[in-house]
């Protein structure tokens, strides 16, 4: 019954007029920006982050969460209507979604995505409410070795779930970790890698890295070849799914939700893997697999449910452990720190209104989204008609102001330029940016806990794997080792490629 009283507390917080208003503004802005082609949830959240700085913590985080799932939603609309997914998690949706749209069934595809997402969001909210308290209790017992091992497991997972080369993902993580160490060493106060620039004493601005790698780099990518990208926007005739559609949607939505809720918790790319895996499973169990790729509604409903459920449950490690599962969660952690909240298990204990308010607001936000997206779809379609060359100057302007407003530090703008270029180069070399961002956020944490643990153990590295003394740490590291060996095994590597190749 504690669950119900917690949810009641959350709902009363989330339903306060101020919070409901900012939740609405968040999902609205998120959809608005997310629907623009070429802008995924990470770039959207990074750009809109500064708007929340003027708010008190609870509405700020509620709004930020709204921006995230709003952007996710907007991305699916783009994927279905013009076959241009904003971020990889909606890439699968565009396979069958765009085919449906070409057959004049765009409305049904959008409805399937919306209904699936809403159902998944509702279930995932309960999953968070159920899973968060016990995890928080465990996390309160964590010492430096446990945290170190947990971060290692997180990083290994994000390698395993990144699509593309495992080695490149490892290199991206290590690069991210090192970039995260730039700044003043917390133990000795020694400046590290600051090139004698005072502006770098606090480290590289995370928002600048995110906006550069996900925003500017993407613009460079699109400017490589401008002739290719004229998509035809599908018309939305009727929204209502037929009886047949409903019948075919229900089971995929249920399976997608279950898969997404479970995989979303994993760091790295839980939501991406979930949508790919959901699609693969539907294709396997379907009685008419030949329809996949030609406009099967299951191929929209399942991955969209999975990806929305995963997006929700990715809040679990962030809220309970203070560890981000994806780059957007890393931005949320950044926002918490700016608001003066230390992310981690203490948030639930010390600020239950904030904690449960965010969780309850997700369900409200999902409800608003279904209203915003289905009846108002005409507005979003019109927005899609804005040509890209009229759009990207706005992205650059917003990114510039957004990054500048974090610290009013001119240096951060130089960082955007640098990371935009570096990000473009790495994208070009088939390196995924998400692991770099996770490494960047987790670098300082990893080093701090490693150093503390080594001091506690008086230099004995077995502290991390000594099962009798530190069982949790030992289990976490064993899991990491198994995961790492597994992705490097040739047979698993092949299977892994198959799951991610579905895109073509």
């Amino acid at each position, binding site marked *: 019954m504690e669950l119900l009283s917690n949810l009641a507390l959350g709902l009363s917080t989330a339903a306060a007029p101020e919070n409901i208003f900012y939740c609405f503004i968040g999902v609205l802005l998120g959809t608005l920006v997310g629907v623009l082609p070429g802008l995924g949830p990470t770039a959207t959240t990074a750009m809109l982050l500064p708007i929340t700085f003027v708010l008190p913590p609870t509405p700020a985080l509620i709004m930020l969460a709204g921006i995230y799932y709003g952007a996710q939603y907007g991305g699916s609309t783009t994927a279905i209507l013009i076959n241009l997914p904003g971020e990889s998690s909606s890439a699968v949706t565009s396979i069958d979604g765009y085919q449906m749209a070409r057959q004049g069934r765009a409305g049904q595809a959008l409805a399937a995505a919306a209904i699936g997402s809403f159902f998944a969001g509702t279930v995932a909210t309960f999953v968070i409410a159920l899973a968060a308290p016990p995890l928080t209790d465990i996390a309160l017992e964590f010492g430096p070795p446990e945290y170190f091992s947990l971060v290692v497991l997180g990083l290994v997972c994000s390698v395993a779930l990144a699509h593309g*080369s495992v080695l490149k993902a490892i290199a991206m993580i290590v690069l991210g970790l090192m970039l995260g160490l730039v700044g003043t060493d917390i133990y000795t106060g020694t400046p590290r890698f600051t090139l004698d620039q005072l502006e770098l004493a606090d480290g590289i601005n995370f928002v600048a890295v995110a906006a550069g790698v996900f925003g500017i780099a993407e613009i460079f990518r699109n400017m490589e070849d401008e002739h290719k990208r004229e998509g035809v926007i599908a018309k939305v005739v009727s929204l209502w799914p037929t009886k047949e559609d409903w019948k075919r949607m229900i089971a995929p939505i249920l399976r997608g939700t279950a898969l997404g809720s479970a995989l979303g918790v994993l760091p790295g790319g839980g939501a991406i893997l979930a949508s790919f895996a959901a699609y693969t499973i539907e294709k396997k169990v379907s009685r008419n697999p030949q329809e996949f790729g030609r406009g099967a509604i299951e191929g929209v409903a399942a991955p969209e449910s999975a990806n929305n459920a995963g997006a929700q449950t990715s809040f679990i490690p962030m809220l309970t452990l203070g560890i981000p599962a994806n780059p957007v969660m890393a931005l949320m952690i950044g926002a918490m720190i700016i608001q003066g909240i230390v992310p981690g298990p203490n948030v639930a204990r010390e600020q239950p209104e904030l904690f449960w308010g965010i969780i309850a607001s997700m369900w409200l936000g999902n409800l608003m989204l279904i209203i915003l997206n289905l009846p108002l779809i005409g507005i979003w379609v019109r927005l899609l008609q804005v040509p890209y060359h009229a759009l990207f100057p706005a992205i650059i302007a917003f990114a510039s102001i957004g990054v500048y407003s974090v610290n009013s530090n001119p240096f951060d*703008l130089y960082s955007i330029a640098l990371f935009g270029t570096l990000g473009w180069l790495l994208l070009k070399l088939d*390196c995924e940016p998400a692991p770099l961002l996770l490494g960047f956020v987790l670098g300082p944490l990893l080093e701090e806990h490693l150093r503390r643990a080594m001091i506690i153990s008086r230099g004995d590295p077995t502290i991390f794997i000594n099962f009798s003394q530190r069982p949790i740490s030992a289990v976490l590291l064993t899991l990491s080792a198994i995961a790492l060996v597994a992705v490097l095994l040739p047979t698993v590597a092949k299977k892994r490629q198959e799951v991610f190749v579905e895109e073509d």
Partner: protein
Amino acid sequence: MTANRKDLICGLVFVVIGLLFAVGTRDLDLGTATRMGPGYFPLVLAGLLVVTGLIIAARSFGQPDVEFGGIPWRAMLLIIPATIFFGYAVRGVGLLPAIFIVALAASFASRKMTVPLAFALSAVLAVFCSLVFVTGLGLPIPLFGPWVRFW
């Protein structure tokens, strides 16, 4: 003997970055495993990056080559200076002119941009951003800075 150009370049990029970081730890105290100094962990990471980079580069040999593709010179030459200019000048010229200039310069990154559209777009963006961020959200940036304020 062919090599996958992308993987080869990728590996070398990581090796170079790793080496640069390793050089950066030169003046930092390494400490011991028990009491790690500020240089310990970064040096370990730099070594790891160099090794990973070398493996990526080594494995590129014997693979079929792939096209590197185009480089968006025009976009880079306009957008990179535009953002740097914004950082350098926003306090001096103020938000409104800074956004106008950034948007105007960036606009021409696209070959499809026309001059009238670029000016119109930049003006709209400058006014919109000023209203939202300064008037609405109260960001502490002047609309017109000391460099351009002659009144």
